[in-house]
């Protein structure tokens, strides 16, 4: 038996003009997919930087407490504490700069996205951001060295330790090996 609803529904549907999807959907979809990927990568990297920073801080705090336990008031102990505080400070600045470099990278990626330029590989982008952060630290170290400041040695060491396998780390290692840096 024929369902009387069938014709009624078919006529009602036919009377409604069919919507036409916009023609640039493929482009819009690709842009949305890229934006989501970029945001996920940036969030993951920032989270990683945050975790590393927290671990480093906790380690240093433990070391300081251990030193305090050993010899609370000796001038040597105070000097050690001051050195470690400087190191902490410089590491915090390094992470801050890394985060700023990543944020800049993300902004650039978004701009490239808006221009529909194919962005580079996400992993490559992370490496680039890392290299850039390493270069910033190296430049700081070189500046301090030119002022004959002993903190330069710490920054060279940090560049090697925090950003291994980067051009800046290799340059920092060479500088440390040369023995020309004033020791702290």
């Amino acid at each position, binding site marked *: 038996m024929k369902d009387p*609803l069938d014709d009624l*529904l078919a006529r009602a549907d036919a*009377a409604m003009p*069919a*919507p036409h999807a916009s023609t640039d*959907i493929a482009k819009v979809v690709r842009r949305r997919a890229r934006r989501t990927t970029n945001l996920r990568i940036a969030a993951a990297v920032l989270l990683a930087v945050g975790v590393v920073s927290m671990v480093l801080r906790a380690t240093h705090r433990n070391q300081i407490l251990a030193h305090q336990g050993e010899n609370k008031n000796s001038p040597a102990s105070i000097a050690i504490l001051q050195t470690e505080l400087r190191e902490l400070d410089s590491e915090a600045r390094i992470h801050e700069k890394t985060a700023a470099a990543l944020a800049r990278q993300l902004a650039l990626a978004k701009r490239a996205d808006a221009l529909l330029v194919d962005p580079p590989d996400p992993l490559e982008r992370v490496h680039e951001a890392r290299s850039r952060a390493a270069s910033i630290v190296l430049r700081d170290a070189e500046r301090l060295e030119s002022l004959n400041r002993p903190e330069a040695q710490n920054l060279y060491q940090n560049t090697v330790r925090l950003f291994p396998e980067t051009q800046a780390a290799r340059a920092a290692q060479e500088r440390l090996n040369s023995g020309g840096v004033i020791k702290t």
Partner: protein
Amino acid sequence: MRTAVMTRPIERKEADETDLAVQLARGQERAFDEVVALYRDRVARLAHRLMGWRGDVDDVVQDVFLAVFRKAKSFRKDASLWTWLTVITVNCCRTRHRRQALRTRLAAVLPWQARESDAADHGAIRDEAAMQVRDAVATLPPRDREVVVLFYFEHKSAAEIGALVGSSRNAVEVRLHRARAALRTVLEPMLRDER
């Protein structure tokens, strides 16, 4: 007549569609463009019906193809492309319904929240009877409407609908029966004229 108004599948040979599906699963960009070009209007039409012929479907269509773009590699070639797209469209429309329901609840709590207007499409409507029929379908619960749309407009069987929406055949038949009863009650005078 039913055959005159039903959405016709895009005329592609089965082999071509399988080939396209394989290319899409391999992540080929051109295959994605082709799928969008071939199916965007059909997806828009289905979404429009599932949304009760109301509102702009562009966002839903974008969501559907975004899901296709992301999940292309997980596409199982044992189903047809259109079947896969239908499942995604149904799910995207469900998400949209949930958001709308949430927005409606928020609007009730927060009086400054803008209320969505259903009247947007009605300006274009000339046929009063057709509008009544569409309104009757649109006021069905979303899950019942899904079943009606897939049965009457996509011409799927209860078993096929069950596979698409993740329900048993019996559950689909119960929904269909309930939806038909509701529609018959509302559209009784028109159905009498039909006879």
